[in-house]
């Protein structure tokens, strides 16, 4: 009855058998690529995501270079040349209610709009991931306390929470960013917690514990690399919401204050002009919309690029 093992052991003779040999040869032809290598490879083959990414990149470049490339002074108005239409010889995209050049203001406005839209998600990504990974990895009471606290913030619809916080804190860029960060931290933390809880029972985490690594080292080296992808995708999806909310705060007069150009704020000040020059009045919204939808499409592309079965 000992034949099966004994026989195959005798046959083995120390050389690689069929299974290992086959895999070894196949492996020699496929270049080794890490997870992110695969994701990038798939992402560049997604035309929609690439177009959205290119648009975002273009807006970022304009935002960075804005102070040097605006065709006119974005702050200098003229009472005589107010609300020129789109296509005007001097003002290509018209002029606003104070006679300032729209295209210059839109270009410069991209800076603050992007800044107050993206910064809260970035900060919340760091803080929320930290809280969520800690709660998910440690589990037990730490998890219960952290996650129940986070549930409280989920009891507020995010628009309401953002407006309540920045309403209480008062207007200003800093307060707007703080409020939006508070909105996104719980959302990211919840995702991070659930992804981390999903992997904390894996054998490789046990193996890492057995090697004598501290909890912090395991979270940093073993857990982080496996959970950061899904959290990141979720966060990129939030940028779209954040852009809309951030400009919304400025639209209400809670974010950026005049005379700084910001798309939401421009939309607000141009509301009075909708009967005179509706197209110009709607332009800042187009910018918000285009950037927001680009982030959404890019995030969708990233998500499907990351759905790799390994």
């Amino acid at each position: 009855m000992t034949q099966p093992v004994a026989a195959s052991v005798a046959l083995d003779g120390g050389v690689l058998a069929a299974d290992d040999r086959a895999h070894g040869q196949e492996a020699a032809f496929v270049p080794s690529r890490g997870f992110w290598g695969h994701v990038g490879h798939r992402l560049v083959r997604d035309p929609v995501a690439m177009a959205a990414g290119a648009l975002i990149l273009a807006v970022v470049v304009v935002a960075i270079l804005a102070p040097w490339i605006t065709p006119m002074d974005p702050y200098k108005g003229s009472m005589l040349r107010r609300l020129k239409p789109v296509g005007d010889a001097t003002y290509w995209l018209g002029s606003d209610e104070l006679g300032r050049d729209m295209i210059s203001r839109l270009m410069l406005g991209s800076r603050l709009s992007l800044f107050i839209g993206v910064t809260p998600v970035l900060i919340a990504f760091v803080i929320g991931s930290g809280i969520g990974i800690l709660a998910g990895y440690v589990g037990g009471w730490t998890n219960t306390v952290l996650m129940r606290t986070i549930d409280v913030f989920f009891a507020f619809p995010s628009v309401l929470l953002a407006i309540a916080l920045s309403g209480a804190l008062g207007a200003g860029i800093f307060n707007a960013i703080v409020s939006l960060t508070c909105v996104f931290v719980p959302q990211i933390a919840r995702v991070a917690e659930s992804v981390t809880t999903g992997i904390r029972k894996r054998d490789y985490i046990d193996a890492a514990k057995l090697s004598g690594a501290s909890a912090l080292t395991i979270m940093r080296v073993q857990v982080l690399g496996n959970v950061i992808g899904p959290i990141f995708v979720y966060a990129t999806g939030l940028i779209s919401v954040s852009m809309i909310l951030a400009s919304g705060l400025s639209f209400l007069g809670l974010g950026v204050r005049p005379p700084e150009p910001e798309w939401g704020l421009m939309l607000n000040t141009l509301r009075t002009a909708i009967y005179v020059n509706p197209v110009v009045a709607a332009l800042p919204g187009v910018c918000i919309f285009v950037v927001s939808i680009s982030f959404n499409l890019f995030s969708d592309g990233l998500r499907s690029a990351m759905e790799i079965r390994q």
Partner: protein
Amino acid sequence: MLLYTLKRLLYVTPVAFGVSVVCFLLVHLAPGDPLSAVLPADATQQTIDEMRAAYGFDKPLPVQYLIWLWHVLHGDLGTSIATGRPVAAEVGRAVVNSLILAAVATAIGFTFGTLFGFVAGYHRNSAADRAASALSVFGVSVPHYWLGMVMVIVFSATLGWLPPTGAGPDGSGNWRPDLDHLRYLILPAVTMSVIPTGIIARTVRALVADILSQDFVEALRAKGMDERGVFRHVVRNAAPTALAIMGLQLGYLLGGSILIETVFAWPGTGFLLNAAIFQRDLPLLQGSILVLAMFFVALNLLVDVMQTALDPRIERA
């Protein structure tokens, strides 16, 4: 079922408590003295102290919280600093207007969302499917306050079909169910419905596609059930989740209505919040947010319990 409801209730209680703490602390987040908005600049120290005592701001925070909570539990949300009227009455009137707007928007969103979702789910990868998914991306990406402006530009400023702002012809207060008032409701409600339309369409599409790909549908067809019967099965299986999403969307719209209400000058909670923020009327701000958040918590609870009751697959332990 009763046991499940009680369990959910038990779970919601600490959340509601947390919400009340957050709302209470909102006032204390605010920079400066909450009374500075109403006091004249040359007020004497004695006047300031008297006012502080009158509003209870002179006591330690936990005591203030307990007193506040006690009043809230008795339906007293305090007095508006700006108008001097009870907050509860102001919020109550505004909530009715907001609820009408949000409910109509949700109804529109649900109708079109399920319609698009069903078509897309039944004909995956068709042109209709692509249109539906484009619509849902549009719904969540569009700044709705801007969409509201565009609606006003098109239908009021340019075409002159519908009134741009307000809730009724008299320019004031309350919405009433008559034809005149209905015209005022159309633009804000349609604008607001774009978000739930997109989200419901996306969810229903995924649900329908999932149900249709399951084995039991194959089995039903094999047993000779006609397409109408299959459709009925799909509806029955998709309904609980779709209704739950609808309920949650109502909550989100009610809480997130401030931007759209501002665009359309709709006399609801959003409008009230806006006023409270800019007049630094903190009791009013606190009261409105508390009511909206509690409404959202209650709605969540209701949706959860109803979904469990409707869906035979969820265990009611």
